[in-house]
């Protein structure tokens, strides 16, 4: 598996008697969308935290772009090109849309400790920021305060900020959460285009979206990956049917 951009190798994490991650190995390859699904309480969030760096596993490693990043902070992983979006939008709500994307471009380029420049007049950053806004279709609200944005547009802005980081991989935690039918369709189309830029590890509850997008799907139940495969393989897997999907979702 040499072409894996991001991989976990036997990650285990326990909280007291509860083992939230049990020997999890999964990988994300160039050009793919790899969806991670599982019922509530399966340990998806715990796994995400270990991949992004806000939790450290008890054992096992996280490999990103050929580097072992297990002991690196979330900020250091972001600088290496891990572009993430949050389950609950984590944006600077008092800032404009543009300020949020310029912040991303600034974080990627560096020079955060310049004290006397005019950051919102920095052409280099503005160019990257505007490209990202254009790509997700937010150019028209570039000067709107983020707190005044609709939920759906905030989700798109999260993706735009991740884009400014020139990511080598995206990690998206339920990007469709709370989106209506139309919003979900837009997001599906956006992610579909993004996968050529960088592969996406997608945690998602919306099964239609997952089956429409994912090249591969991994199913997490009680902290363990019980199956990994293509959409068709997962649909056909009896264990998955029993543990998670239920009959109706598959028909």
């Amino acid at each position, binding site marked *: 598996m040499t072409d894996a951009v991001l991989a976990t190798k036997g990650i285990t994490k326990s909280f007291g008697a509860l083992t939230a991650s049990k020997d999890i190995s999964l990988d994300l390859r160039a050009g793919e969308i790899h969806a991670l699904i599982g019922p509530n309480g399966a340990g998806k969030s715990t796994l995400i935290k270990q991949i992004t760096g806000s939790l450290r596993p008890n054992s096992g490693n996280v490999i990103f772009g050929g580097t072992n990043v297990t002991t690196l902070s979330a900020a250091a992983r*972001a600088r290496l090109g891990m572009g993430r979006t949050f389950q609950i939008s*984590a*944006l*600077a709500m008092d800032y*404009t849309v543009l300020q949020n994307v*310029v912040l991303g471009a600034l*974080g990627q380029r560096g020079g955060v400790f310049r004290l006397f420049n005019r950051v919102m007049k920095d052409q280099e950053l503005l160019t990257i920021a505007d490209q990202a806004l254009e790509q997700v279709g937010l150019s028209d609200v570039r000067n709107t305060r983020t707190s005044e944005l609709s939920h759906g547009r905030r989700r798109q802005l999260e993706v735009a900020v991740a884009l400014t980081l020139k990511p080598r991989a995206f990690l998206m935690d339920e990007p469709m959460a709370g989106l209506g039918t139309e919003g979900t369709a837009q997001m599906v189309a956006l992610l579909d285009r993004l996968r050529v830029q960088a592969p996406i590890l997608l945690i998602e509850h919306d099964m239609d979206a997952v089956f429409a997008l994912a090249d591969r799907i991994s199913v997490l139940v009680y902290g363990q990956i019980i199956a990994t495969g293509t959409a068709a393989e997962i649909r056909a897997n009896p264990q998955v049917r029993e543990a998670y999907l239920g009959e109706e979702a598959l028909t």
Partner: protein
Amino acid sequence: MIRETTLNAALLVLLLAVPLAALILDELFIITLATRAVIFAIAGIGLNLALGFGGLVSLGHAAFFGIGGYAMGILAYHAQTYTPLIEWHFVIDGTKSMPVIWLTATIASAIAALGIGALSLRTSGVYFIMITLAFGQMFYFFTISWPAYGGEDGLSIYVRNGFAGFNTMDPITFFAICYAMLLAVLWLVARLVRSSFGLALGAARQNEDRIQAVGQRPFTLYLAAFTISGAITGLAGALFADLNRFVSPTMFSWQTSGEIMVFVILGGVGRVYGPVAGAAMFILLEHVLGGLSEFWHIYLGAILLGIVLFARGGLIGLLAGREVADD
């Protein structure tokens, strides 16, 4: 609604016009009051960088105010008693030069802020408030029990320190010096807020997950903000000591920290000119209400309560509305 820039300019003009009018009317006391307002404004601007822009509620900024004050006191004390400050392998004498004192005060309080910040910023929320308060009180009790520089009684400096040959004992001259420092500090902070650092610091305040996700550690940003913040408040401390020609442990007391915070909240948290409005209003209330009743703090408390409940942007927010987010 008035545009914020217009309001800021009006504020500065007013702060200059009042002592000039007082000079013509020969009301020297008013000039001293205006000088106090200017110095308190500088102290508040310092705190506002941490509190308003970084979201760091420090109840220990008296530490930096006091360090600035004692930097002035100690240097001037050695100069006026003709005793060397340090006599160890080499000799360092005291000084009566304001620029040297300002530089010393700023550097000393920056170093203190770096140390206090590095420890305090490991906590957050209420614990951060408590640990900064504790550091301030440590300095307070230390100076009380430090006999070399007057202990509890403080330290009197007989003649105001010198600046480029001006007669600094002349109230309006000293006011002008303090006013010029205020303009310099305002310029500095206005630049900081619009810089890369300002953008990242504000984002860290609003959402720590966000700033980490773009590859920056909130701690480093906070520490830098806290250090600059302490340095500015320290400078104000040196000016305040020079105004009174007296330093005492009171400068380190937690009431001082509280008052500096009141300037910021009255004027507008996170607004560059907020502390200027806040300090001016504080002095005005102290003078007007203080003349009416010994218990004027009750009225101040009521006003503060009103602002916290109904005008979160303080005076500036009340008059200029919400901040314009884009430049």
